[in-house]
């Protein structure tokens, strides 16, 4: 899930003294906006390129393969496919910026509407997943580091590596079989039981929030009941990654001299760990959590397929199977944009929060 997407934390720029802090901040803001813009254009270029390498002729898809040549040529012109690639790319960017992602074949609606409808479901699941991942992963990482080399540490290490080795769809399936079918601890596929479906008017699209607004606690409970298993499956992957990173950050701190000093002075071990060693790692942890959160949006593709979760991942897989390229590219764009956005925000947070990087 969250593997390899490490945008390493930015090194502090050493230009201090030459410029005023205000100017420097302005420059770093500009630089940030430029990278952000370039990355987004890169994302657009990639989706544009993917849209061009599709072996299906988009004109034939419209006119059918028995249309006369004149009709074919006219439609081709109307679709702008006779223009140079650069011009096509510019109009593509224009379309995307104005929210015109094309029409999804599978639903017959504009892709942007579909995406707006399905995105909250994914957001809800990923958010609960990251909360679980942080609440469990951080303490596990700290414990592992404080008992380095012990059996507990080895166990947590294996859990961390399992996060890189267990297929998300397999975990979801096994989870459904065990916790839903066998033990009946949790609800099955879908966001709520069928007879609760569509009862709450979607305001935010987040069913937990909507049911609170509506004051319908029964639906709230039912939604939690359905959400807990897919969110836990997702959370497992962020837990594994966060625990791994926390452990490594903590080991770094625990080998520092100030920790030895604190110990020599007789500070209880619990305080050494939580009050001294843990504090400095909070900032890098924020970056890790951000990366992991972004990774969960990606991981949700598989989990949603398993749990028939009406989110963007499910939408994407259905579109993939129907070769519905407008929907595929629209989902790719949205997931990519959110991914980039979260990555950059955690970058910025790092700079703002870490006094050395300011």
């Amino acid at each position, binding site marked *: 899930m969250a593997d390899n*997407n490490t945008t390493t934390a930015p090194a502090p720029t050493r230009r201090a003294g030459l410029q005023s802090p205000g100017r420097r901040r302005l420059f770093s803001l500009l630089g940030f906006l430029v990278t952000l813009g370039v990355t987004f254009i*890169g994302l657009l270029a*990639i989706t544009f390129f993917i849209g061009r390498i599709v072996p299906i002729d988009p004109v034939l898809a419209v006119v059918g393969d028995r249309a006369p040549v004149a009709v074919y040529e006219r439609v081709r012109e109307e679709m702008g496919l006779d223009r140079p690639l650069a011009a096509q790319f510019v109009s593509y960017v224009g379309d995307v910026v104005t929210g015109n992602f094309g029409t999804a074949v599978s639903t017959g609606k504009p892709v942007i509407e579909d995406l707006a409808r399905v995105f909250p479901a994914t957001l809800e699941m990923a958010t609960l997943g990251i909360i679980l991942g942080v609440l469990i992963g951080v303490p596990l990482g700290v414990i592992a580091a404080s008992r380095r080399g012990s059996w507990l540490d080895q166990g947590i290490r294996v859990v961390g590596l399992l996060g890189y080795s267990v297929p998300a769809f397999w975990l979801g399936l096994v989870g459904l079989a065990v916790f839903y079918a066998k033990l009946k601890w949790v609800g099955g596929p879908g966001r709520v039981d069928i007879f609760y479906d569509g009862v709450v008017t979607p305001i935010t699209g987040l069913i937990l929030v909507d049911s609170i607004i509506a004051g319908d606690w029964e639906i709230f409970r039912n939604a939690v009941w359905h959400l807990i298993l897919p969110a836990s499956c997702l959370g497992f992957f962020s837990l594994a990654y966060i625990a791994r990173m926390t452990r490594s950050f903590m080991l770094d701190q625990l080998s520092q001299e100030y920790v030895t000093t604190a110990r020599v002075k007789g500070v209880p071990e619990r305080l050494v760990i939580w009050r001294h060693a843990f504090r400095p790692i909070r900032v890098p942890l924020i970056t890790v959590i951000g990366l992991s959160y972004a990774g969960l949006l990606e991981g949700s593709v598989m989990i949603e*397929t398993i749990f028939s979760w009406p989110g963007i991942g499910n939408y994407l897989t259905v579109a993939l199977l129907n070769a519905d390229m407008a929907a595929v590219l629209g989902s790719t764009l949205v997931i990519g944009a959110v991914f980039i956005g979260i990555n950059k925000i955690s970058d910025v947070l790092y700079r703002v929060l870490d006094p050395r990087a300011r």
Partner: protein
Amino acid sequence: MTTLRDWLIDDSPASPMQARLGRFYRIFGALMHNPLAVVGAIIILVLVLTALFAPWIATHDPLRQALGERLLPPSAAHWMGTDELGRDIWSRVVYGARITLAIVTLVAVLAAPAGLVIGVAAGYFGGWVDRILMGITDIFLSLPKLILALAFVAALGPGIENAIIAIAITSWPGYARVARAETMTFKNSEFISAVRLLGASSLRVNLGHVLPLCTSSMIVRVTLDMAGIILTAAGLGFIGLGAQPPLPEWGAMISRGRSFILDQWWVATMPGFAIILVSLGFCFLGDGLRDVLDPKSGEQR
């Protein structure tokens, strides 16, 4: 034995070959002290042997359907049970090792050299070459890998070859970053200047002297990436965009077993164990290799 060992760990090797073998021996020795790395190496060895000797290890023909033996639970005759067409799951898992091994090998062969060349070029030439190449690399790195692979396969069409191409397209940027970082550290060292003073062209400097120095960190990175590649390939197979039936690909097998998960749990779970085992093997070995070859990089991955 003692003399061979002495020859291998000799501090002043007489030939490059002796030095190289000695280095391998030291790495091997260090790896053997890491229990997890040993476990990982054994798992991968078993994977390779299983793939090579599949016809002898499998108990049945992986493609032979026996409709009279549909969905049988694991037993002495069918160690992992049978699937919905009466095919022996153990034999299919064994043959699936071939597909998995082929996928990871091909992705590594395609993506690692591409990333290596791009990274070394960027690091060695610097300036605009570096900025453009790394700009492209960073764009790819900042996008979600799985989603990108899915979109590429959707465009190229389903199938195992296209899945491999798509995964390779999403994997090279990581290698380019590693290779660039390594190149930057060697670029200004004296032995490179010496080679240049002797009149070597930049191609020769890079191919003969810079590239070989990047290999150890590349090997670490590739090994660590293997688990992710296996999971992505299995995911594509699961969605139906990777290996097509009747190929016994593990992800596709899980997908077939999905409808029977409640009553015939073994159909979907067994191939999953194979995926987990092999991915864990690569993780263990990669972790161990990193500790030995690249101790500075720590847990950052």
